């Protein structure tokens, strides 16, 4: 009995441990900032998945609730500071959540009547309306500059004033952990299951006693609440809120996070939020063509891993659990060099082209590529790149059937094991 409880709890303990120890591994202030942002984004992406993954609602305007939650939080925060109330920082995200909930209830009322394209388009329209009105309602949204605040002016919490990033990190981590658990629990309730049913077949759900509209509405409210919490946390982290945070870009970012991570799995959006945040912040340091890579990566996921990263992981986890993973190893080992060659070739081509077209005018065509000095206008690097890419694609095509066969064997064994 205790062992089963322990088994059920172990992923959570592990997660908590991970949250607790991460700063030991990455102690720099910018790493802490990044991890704090990841925490915020994890909540945000999971809240989005209540809509997309659980209830089948594709929203183009989820950032509205994140942003409005943030704005209400920051105003409340400034008012609290002004009135010298004794409400310390850790409680503020709750205000964001409640604000998100309130706006979610308001807008949900008009948008959850239907699902599908109608819902998506209403969310798009509402998103545009809210973000456009941010320029009109200047006193609330603070115009272009937004609203700033200072978290250290809040009442201290057991002596902590949350000046140093590490304290903010732990605050985010605790909230993030709690929200993950809460949202996970939500998927395991009758309500969560009925959301799945409504996603699959809203009409039939209506004939077994549930109002699809009501279910969509409630799930919309939950999503807005957690998005608001994320917005509130973002305020504590950045100490600024502006209209960009509720715009289309933020809305599509969260969609991308949920999808790339894998909307079909509870933990998918967590992975998506971590990966996308990391890439967003660091990729631009490595290459100025980062948006191109971003787009290519994204398309690759859509084309080749429709279940997202989580889907891919689950496939292997299943094999690993049954001890079948090693059967894939030879095939993977064979194809890995081809994959690497193709990847390097592709990156070279992008970088060469980028340099040649974008920067050669004023900097000349000489550049450094993978630590080697090359001339982007000369033949040699292009030849190498094309060769690598060609070899990668050619070998990949040649060898891919082996991976397929290996998977066939594994799948057959897994099926047999499942049947038994």
């Amino acid at each position, binding site marked *: 009995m205790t062992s089963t409880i322990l088994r059920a709890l172990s992923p959570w303990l592990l997660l908590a441990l991970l949250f607790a120890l991460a700063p030991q591994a990455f102690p720099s202030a910018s790493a802490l900032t990044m991890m704090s942002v990841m925490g915020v984004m994890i909540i945000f992406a999971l809240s989005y998945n209540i809509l997309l993954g659980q209830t089948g609602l594709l929203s183009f305007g989820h950032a509205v609730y994140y942003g409005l939650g943030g704005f209400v939080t920051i105003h409340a925060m400034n008012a609290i500071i002004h009135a010298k109330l004794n409400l310390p920082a850790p409680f503020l995200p709750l205000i964001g959540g409640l604000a998100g909930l309130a706006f979610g209830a308001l807008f949900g009322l008009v948008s959850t009547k239907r699902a599908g394209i109608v819902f998506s388009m209403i969310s798009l329209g509402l998103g545009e309306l809210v973000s456009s009105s941010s320029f009109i309602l200047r006193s609330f949204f603070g115009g272009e500059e937004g609203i700033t605040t200072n978290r250290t002016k809040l009442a201290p919490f057991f002596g902590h004033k949350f000046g140093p990033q590490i304290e903010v990190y732990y605050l985010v981590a605790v909230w993030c952990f709690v929200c993950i658990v809460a949202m996970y629990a939500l998927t395991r309730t009758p309500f969560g299951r009925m959301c799945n*049913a409504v996603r699959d077949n809203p009409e039939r759900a*209506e*004939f077994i006693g549930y109002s699809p509209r009501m279910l969509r509405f409630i799930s919309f409210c939950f999503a807005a609440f957690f998005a608001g919490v994320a917005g509130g946390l973002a305020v504590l982290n950045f100490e600024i809120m502006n209209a960009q945070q509720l715009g289309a870009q933020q809305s599509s970012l969260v969609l991308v996070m949920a999808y790339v991570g894998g909307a079909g799995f509870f933990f998918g959006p967590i992975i998506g939020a971590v990966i996308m945040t990391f890439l967003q912040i660091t990729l631009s340091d490595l290459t100025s063509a980062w948006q191109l890579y971003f787009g290519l990566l994204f398309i690759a996921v859509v084309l080749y891993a429709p279940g997202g990263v989580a889907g891919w992981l689950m496939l292997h986890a299943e094999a690993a659990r049954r001890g079948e993973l090693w059967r894939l190893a030879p095939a993977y080992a064979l194809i890995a060099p081809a994959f690497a060659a193709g990847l390097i070739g592709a990156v070279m081509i992008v970088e060469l082209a980028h340099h040649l077209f974008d920067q050669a005018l004023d900097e000349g065509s000489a550049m450094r590529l993978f630590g080697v000095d090359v001339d982007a206008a000369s033949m040699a690097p292009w030849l190498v790149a094309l060769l690598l890419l060609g070899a990668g694609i050619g070998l990949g095509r040649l060898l891919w059937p082996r991976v397929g066969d290996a998977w066939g064997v594994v799948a057959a064994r897994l099926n047999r094991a499942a049947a038994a």
Partner: protein
Amino acid sequence: MSAALSLVDLHKSFGLTQIIRGLSLEVAAGERHAIIGPNGAGKSTLFHLISGRLKPTSGEIRLNGERIGGLRPYEINRRGLARSFQVTNIFPKLSVYENLRCAALWSLGHKYSFWTRIEGLRDARARAESLMERIGLTARRDAPAGVLSYAEQRALEIGVTIAGDADVIMLDEPTAGMNNTETEQAVALIRKVTEGKTLVMVEHDMGVVFGLADRISVLVYGQIIACDTPARIRENDAVREAYLGQAGH
């Protein structure tokens, strides 16, 4: 006997086309009632009207004496009426077990509850499992409903309908697509689960109709031309001409 379901002068038109044209019918509580009639006569439409999928143009529908015309399907379902569909209508991505459990949830009182763990609901599990047993799908417990064979899906359709334990059960061509054996099993199942309940069904398989029904209504062009016991219906010339043809013999 009190009427479980009573329809008074019901009309339904789509645009200019009248489909149901002044239909009145009483189904007594505990009765097994079959509705037969030519293709396109309006049988499924009638089901849609009663179950709330369509709104009547005029007329009155009462369930256990209460007016339900114009209510939403879930409101009608909560008042104790469940129906199946002629075209299979289940939750394709959920497993067989999940389909049945979901269908049972509301009637067991687990409404929009987001504080209980679904795995902890013994009653829902027990109901889903016993149903799965009865419709013969236990072996396919975790298969997504969408990959079941046609006949299996038809069985699940019935399962989802009866899972909520409603008093009035309406089945639209429950045995279509089943072979003789399966049909026999389905008839036995229907007989068993509607024990003490009211059943209204549409069916073209005369074996099933004559085997199950206490009374039969014949719907032709949106009107009931006869409503009687199976034996009398079989003898009815008008019915034979409009519907039965050779099969009546």
